């Protein structure tokens, strides 16, 4: 399949990151969200991200213009009709995902691959309620998608070989690395990362070490580019909590039980970079305020 245009439904942090990364690779992107309010926020988010990279010499003015010119924002799903692949990136709630997939299926062509960017939910379950479950696949991009090369390519029970091939073609086109996974809660990455973040939260909550030292230990000791608590701030503590809840619920295994302190931070609205406070504090552009080396 020749993929020229990719649709993204859900212009949250991940949706914006995906749009930017895919457009940078030269593909056209249709980025969909519910209303003008969300789309305006997405516009601002895109500009911010590109400007930040401009100051870090990552792109040129001309490249920024090129990237923006390839991203079309819209609230009407019919704009997805021309896309050869659509990725949903809406909130991690099963009912919402199912509903969005049904809406996507109603407007796209018969050959279009429909991918879910879910990190934990069951592809089989999401796909079960749509007419052609064989064209549904999980494409779990990692945040921030520009910097993370791995994509978990998740097959549901009904996912066809053709769908896997088409999704692989996109991953290759984007210069990413695919790891193939058969459906299982948390796949590889969330299943390994979330317990790590959860345990780091417990270490902090028990007063064993400071957040800086916990992160430093994993960076200096194990070559992590970011410590688990910094990562949690990037993912969003609410997302981490959701994923842990979901793993805990699906497996009934106590090792996934969310740390009470994580729950407390989320209740307080300390969600990480997006709320400028989580385990650390951040400025408007998401730069850490203290503790930079």
């Amino acid at each position, binding site marked *: 399949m*020749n993929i*020229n245009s990719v649709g993204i439904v859900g212009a949250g942090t991940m949706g914006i990151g995906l749009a930017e990364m895919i457009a940078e690779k*030269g593909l056209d992107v249709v980025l969909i969200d519910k209303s003008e309010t969300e789309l305006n926020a997405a516009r601002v988010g895109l500009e911010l991200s590109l400007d930040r*990279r401009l100051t*870090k*010499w*990552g*792109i*040129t003015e001309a490249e920024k213009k090129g990237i923006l010119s390839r991203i079309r924002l819209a609230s009407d799903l019919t704009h997805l009709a021309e896309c050869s692949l659509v990725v949903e990136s809406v909130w991690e709630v099963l009912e919402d995902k199912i509903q969005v997939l049904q809406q996507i299926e109603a407007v796209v062509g018969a050959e279009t691959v429909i991918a879910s960017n879910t990190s934990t939910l069951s592809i089989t379950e999401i796909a079960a309620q749509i007419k052609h479950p064989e064209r549904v696949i999980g494409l779990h991009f990692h945040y921030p998608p520009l*910097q993370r090369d791995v994509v978990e390519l998740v097959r549901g029970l009904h996912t066809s070989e053709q769908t896997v091939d088409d999704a692989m073609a996109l991953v290759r086109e984007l210069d990413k690395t695919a790891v193939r996974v058969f459906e299982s809660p948390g796949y590889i990455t969330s299943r390994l990362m979330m317990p790590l973040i959860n345990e780091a939260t417990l270490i902090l909550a028990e007063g064993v070490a400071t957040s800086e030292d916990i992160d430093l230990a994993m960076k200096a000791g194990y070559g992590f580019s970011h410590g688990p608590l910094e990562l949690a701030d990037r993912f969003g503590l609410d997302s981490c909590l959701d994923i842990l809840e979901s793993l805990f619920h699906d497996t009934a295994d106590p090792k996934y039980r969310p740390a009470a302190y994580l729950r407390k931070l989320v209740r307080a609205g300390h969600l990480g970079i997006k709320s400028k406070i989580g385990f650390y504090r951040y400025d408007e552009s998401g730069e850490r305020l203290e503790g*930079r*080396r």
Partner: protein
Amino acid sequence: MKILVLNCGSSSLKYQLFAMPEEAVLIKGTVEKIGSDDAIHAYKTDGQKGETVSEILDHREAIRQVVAALTSPEVGVLKEAAEITAVGHRVVHGGERFSLSTLINGEVKQAIRDTFDLAPLHNPANLLGIEAMEEVLPAVPQVAVFDTAFHQTMPMEHFLYPIPYVLYQRHKVRRYGFHGTSHRYVTSRVPALVGRDVTGLKVISCHIGNGASVAAIWRGRSIDTSMGMTPLEGLMMGTRSGDIDPSIHEYVMEKEGLTFDELNSMLNKHSGLYGVSGITGDMRQIVEERSKGNTRAGVAFSMYTYRIRKYIGAYAAAMNGVDVILFTAGVGENSPLLRRSVLERLTYLGIEVDDRANEEGKGERLITTPNSKVAVCVIPTNEELMIARDTNSLVTGLSTTPDRDSISFDT
């Protein structure tokens, strides 16, 4: 005999059709934005210009359109596609395998594929062009002309880097050099300008365009060049840094929190004239800003010319002398100010610039006085013609293969 010369980028291609052996250009054109529904095909013949915008999804389609245009009654340069005798392709990286242009077969294509790692932006696109052309004109012989080939005569002590030798053995980490076709073309024009055969001469060729490199050419063969394993090494360029201390990389990454991609982009797209001036990577604009008193444009200009002068000095030392210095490519051909600034502090070599020839002359010419101990020439480059010549001689079997016995380099 008609030869089509093709230079394929990842989403664009340039072509010229030559009548050989007259070396007349029948048409030249470009296709841009390949892979989109508003790709632009623009061309120019002796009598007319044309431009079409249409959907061109891949290189094969682009080449089909080019061939269709060549044979269309409106353009009228060919009656039928079969008139094309051969196709010459510019291929950026030939690795260590190719020191000469070569007829393309399966083995050659594999060798081009083997160098993808060394030229990830260029070689895949070049191969795409070759394969697309094979599908569109299956019966027509194709020739690959490599940017690196001319520099394959460099002796080992010049092309190796002083790092662990296993890196050369395992990964072919070494100097390859680029702009070879251009350096070779301008060198071939030397006898006509200075009246002496190049085999007796020490030549320093300065290809100064948006990318820039200097080559030391001894007895007609490249023995050193400023670009290295990649086109980032050597001279300061429009937006590329050229030579810098490799320890800067780690230091800057740490201080600025950069990723490898950002560092790479910084060195390739945000450095050079652009990075220092903060205004532009275009020499014309730098010269203009400098004349208005912009200090950083002035510093950028001085750094740029200083580094060219350093390389000329280094290569004069490497060859134990220099007889001819050549300037070519966008900046080298069109900026008398740049040439003057580079040359005015090379008087120790016995260079005497003929200001009038430098400033007012046009085209291929000598810009030094008869008394000058070193002849300095401006020579507009013509890589396409070189590709057409190589292609022509390979397909007519008249290959004028220069002898490539291993040379022992001593001056």
